[in-house]
């Protein structure tokens, strides 16, 4: 695990930076304004434990009834990394990701076995509270799903309000999350307007802001751009680059170009098993496994 951590970042994440900043000057300011408050809060909430957001999957299995969808996966997601999960439809990538915040077990008849460690603590330990898991591991879904009865601001602060955060903090933390999601400038004049009145891409960034507002250490994204047009997709991808400085990001994608653009590390799954994981560039240009090569070159899937 440690070796991969060294392999990944410096080269790739610095590659990302110069691409973004000239095209999106606003993006830079949003990082600057949102960042300083961040480490304080995270340390506060986590107590003495250093909150970093390393995820380790240990022999993870997931089932839907008798259907064995994820078949023994060992995989690490390193703090501050963007990891893309690719693979053909039905290979278990969404299921695997939904095991990380324990959303998988919400489905009737679904269960998971194995261990998911967040900074060394097992999220499947019987003493662990599921609400605490969801607050540490946020999720963004395929289709933008703002709450239709709530305003923009209420949407962003929903996770805080409905889990009992102090009222006085809401507006500030809402603004902070909107800024973090690169949406503040676009919506600051319509915070009281309906969240469903935004464009599709804005709605998805609203959902990202909503997930960020509870200050997770890990953000899971399940094909977050599949319902969006190319321009909105580009904005989300730029956002992913910025957010990777604050949270560990796991993104499931059908789009291999997207994986190549945003991810430091890419994992390829097939039939519920992990075929190969490695630095994105290596996986796409010089994979170890023959099946990976066939998939990334479009020979199947």
């Amino acid at each position, binding site marked *: 695990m440690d070796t991969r951590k060294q392999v990944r970042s410096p080269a790739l994440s610095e590659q990302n930076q110069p691409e973004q900043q000239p095209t999106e000057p606003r993006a830079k300011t949003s990082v600057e304004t949102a960042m300083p408050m961040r480490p304080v809060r995270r340390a506060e909430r986590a107590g003495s434990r250093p909150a970093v957001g390393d995820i380790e999957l240990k022999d993870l299995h997931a089932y839907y009834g008798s259907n064995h969808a994820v078949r023994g996966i060992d995989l690490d997601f390193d703090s501050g990394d963007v990891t893309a999960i690719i693979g053909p439809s039905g290979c278990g990538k969404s299921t695997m990701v939904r095991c990380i915040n324990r959303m998988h077990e919400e489905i009737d008849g679904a269960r998971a076995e194995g261990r998911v460690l967040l900074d060394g603590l097992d999220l499947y330990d019987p003493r662990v509270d599921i609400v605490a898991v969801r607050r540490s591991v946020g999720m963004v879904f395929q289709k933008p799903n703002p709450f239709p009865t709530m305003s923009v601001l209420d949407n962003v602060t929903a996770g805080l309000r409905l*889990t009992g955060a102090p009222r006085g903090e809401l507006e500030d933390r809402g603004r902070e999350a909107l800024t973090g999601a690169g949406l503040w400038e676009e919506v600051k004049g319509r915070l009281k307007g309906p969240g469903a009145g935004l464009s599709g891409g804005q709605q998805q960034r609203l959902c990202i802001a909503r997930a960020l507002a509870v200050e997770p250490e890990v953000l899971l994204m399940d094909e977050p751009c599949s319902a969006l047009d190319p321009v909105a997709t580009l904005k989300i991808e730029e956002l992913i680059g910025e957010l990777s400085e604050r949270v560990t990001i796991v993104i499931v994608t059908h789009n291999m170009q997207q994986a190549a653009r945003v991810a430091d590390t890419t994992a390829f799954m097939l039939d519920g098993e992990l075929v190969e994981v490695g630095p994105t560039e290596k996986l796409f240009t010089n994979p170890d496994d023959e099946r990976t090569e066939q998939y990334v070159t479009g020979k199947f899937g």
Partner: protein
Amino acid sequence: MSAQPHALLVDRGNLRRRNRFNRLVEVSSTLAALLAVAVLVIVVGSVFLKGVGALSWHFLTTPTALFGESGGGISNAIVGTAIIVGIASVVAIPVGILVAIYTTEFAPDRVSHAIRFVLDLLNGVPTIITGIFIYGLLVVGHSQSGFAASVALSIVMLPIVARTAQEVLSLVPAILKEASSALGIAHWRTVVRITIPTAAGGLVTGALLGVARVAGETAPLLFASSIFRQGVLTDPGEALASIPIFIFQASESPKPEAHTEAWAAALVLIAIVLALNVVARAFYARSRKRMGA
């Protein structure tokens, strides 16, 4: 111009038969649809024509005249219906919505199917049976009362409210509930703060349809609240007048003026029911739009 390729494109034999059959089905289903609309138009139209003559401000604001006299109105019946239906609603609407929430959000599938089935059966129980049940339970040995009538009507109303609420709650997109639980929001809180507000318009629809349905219900009232004193009564502890019972009793009278009064009361009742239905539709349309359906 050669005749042969053209002939291939003309409908003949099997294709002609199919075209004719298609036409036949189209015409007959259109006629059936027109017939359904016509029935409503005829019923509402004849009630309007026969009743509008006797309808006046005096008729709406004066209590029913003493037996055998004419010139009275239906103010006591309007007030009585409002009280009886109001109490029934206060009981049936919250219970119906809670039943729906339980079955769509909390109950295991088997239990929820069983409850759905029971509600459908309850909806199918003839209201005269509900009436005689309440008669045996609350009227025999006591006396007729507005309360007894309300209890009977709430039994009629419950399955309507609950089934409509179930339908609407199950329309709330699953992705909203997922988003909510992924934020760490507890299930009951998701139900109260996300699911119910999203479905609110549809829940109002179910409630209004229930009210509209029981406002015209007559059979249970015959048992529970049909022998009442003169004047506008407001104490549900005693039997209250109601519009359906007024229509029934006035139409039994030998006097032609009383018949016209029955028609006028029928017009009032049908106007109330139609208005409730129209408002209910509007809420439903709004709710569907909100849920993106």
